[in-house]
């Protein structure tokens, strides 16, 4: 079963300072943790894809516009308090395992080595074979 684990950054749901305020060794520990996590998932044969997204400064919001050109809103979205920071796609045996992986990445270390406890949204990907109805 394939699951997408969405790392949803949300200012109101986290209680750690912005990355800009972290100490160098805290940033390094965080990067190290993510690399090890991905290497572990790959070694277990569970990693399908893992991607980080560029920061919201470079984001664009596009909306089609009846009878006219599409409307494109350019960043920076100073007011945006929530954004998708990145995702993993894992292929694992059970939802239980997907939740375990999400819990592990949610515990990525932040300032002072404390776990960030970032919310990770676990969504099943619609890749299951159809059943005979």
């Amino acid at each position, binding site marked *: 079963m394939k699951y997408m684990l969405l790392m949803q950054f949300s200012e109101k749901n986290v209680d750690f300072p912005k990355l800009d*305020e972290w*100490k160098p060794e805290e940033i390094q520990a965080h990067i190290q943790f993510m690399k090890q996590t991905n290497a572990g998932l790959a070694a277990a044969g569970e990693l399908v894809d893992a991607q*980080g997204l560029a920061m919201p400064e470079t984001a664009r919001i596009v909306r089609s516009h009846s009878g006219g050109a599409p409307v494109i809103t350019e960043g920076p979205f100073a007011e945006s308090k929530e954004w998708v920071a990145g995702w993993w796609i894992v292929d694992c045996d059970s939802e239980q395992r997907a939740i375990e992986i999400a819990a592990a990445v949610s515990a990525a270390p932040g300032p002072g080595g404390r776990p960030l406890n970032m919310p990770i949204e676990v969504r099943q990907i619609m890749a299951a074979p159809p059943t005979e109805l």
Partner: protein
Amino acid sequence: MTAGEPTVEDLLRTLAPQVVGVLTRRWGDFAAAEDAVQEALLDAATQWPAEGVPRNPRGWLVQVAGRRMTEQVRSEQARRRREELVAGQVPADRRSAPGADTTDEGADDDTLALLFLCCHPVLSSASAIALTLRSVGGLTTGEIAAAFLVPEATMGQRISRAKQRIKASGVPFRMPDATHWPARLDAVLHVLYLIFNEGYVTSTGPELRRVELSREAIRLTRAVHALLPDDAEVTGLLALMLLTEARGPARTGPDGELVPLAEQDRSRWDTGAIAEGIGLITAALPRGPVGPYQVQAAIAAVHDEAPTAAATDWPQILALYGVLSRTSDNPLITLNRAVATAMVHGPAAGLALLADPPPALVGHHRLHAVRAHLHELAGDREAAVADYRAAAHRTASLPERHHLSLCAARLAARAGGGEPDDREAGQC
């Protein structure tokens, strides 16, 4: 640069464009020839290592791929006959593959003509790159897809659409004439440069295995250089690639982190590649007219010749950027020139050049990264931290974001009276 016996794979990939060339000339159908050769290559890759390389490997490939084309044409015709009840007679002898000992005459021209076709300006860069890697480079669709981290079906579609586009535009399979030669050769070199750069930057999927695109670009450029040894820009591009690739082993740390030029362990640079690159560029430069690839190679050579970062001949690099800015209007040259200016005349002079950046650079992460570096050199930590952060927020490369965030954090820690740091200024 790899020593020793050429492997079956090396041999196949050298022969691939020649065989596509022969069949395209014979049948006048590049798209079909390319598909047939791709299948013949797959056959050879499984058969040759087990059964031994045939006496005339090129003839073997021409024959096998030619047979596939014959089958294809026959079944196509059978289909048409059924559908249209028209007997389109094709004499079998006109469609048969050439004898196994056909000479290699024209093979070189075919490889070049194929490159000109695959890098034709009617194609987008992404299409030209994919088609070149498959037809000229002899890579499989799967390998190319893996290198660009897209699904194989997507890459297959990109390649077949590129071939359709060539067909629809009526671009002939032959050498461009003298009037079109410079522009067409520029397009070829640009595609090779992009392939190299994609491999060199390796900006996405840091943990995933990729076909080594930079090595493939060097191999292809080497082939073009062998065919056009007197073209100074071809030589310049090959030198630039070698001189850049030479620093590859020192560019990343043990955890895949970026190591900037000034901090690289120069003992890890590939001295063989440096010597070859310097030899090439030294021979090319006096042959004039000096183009942008030669100048960039000359700049890379100056960096590579310096035993330490401090010993870099910055006045010469600054002069070369002056020459480069007259041959090309790439805004990134402005940035590099500002760095060289700062190294020669001080950071304030470099920053002054960036006070009014060209529109293409506004908001670009590289502009912020360079400004940050120059502010740091000038001792203005606060401005440097702000620019490092701005750069980190705008880059699309994860290793680069890590690097820039660390630069900002290290400087901020020092500015805030954090733990002592024995690093020199300008080496964030």
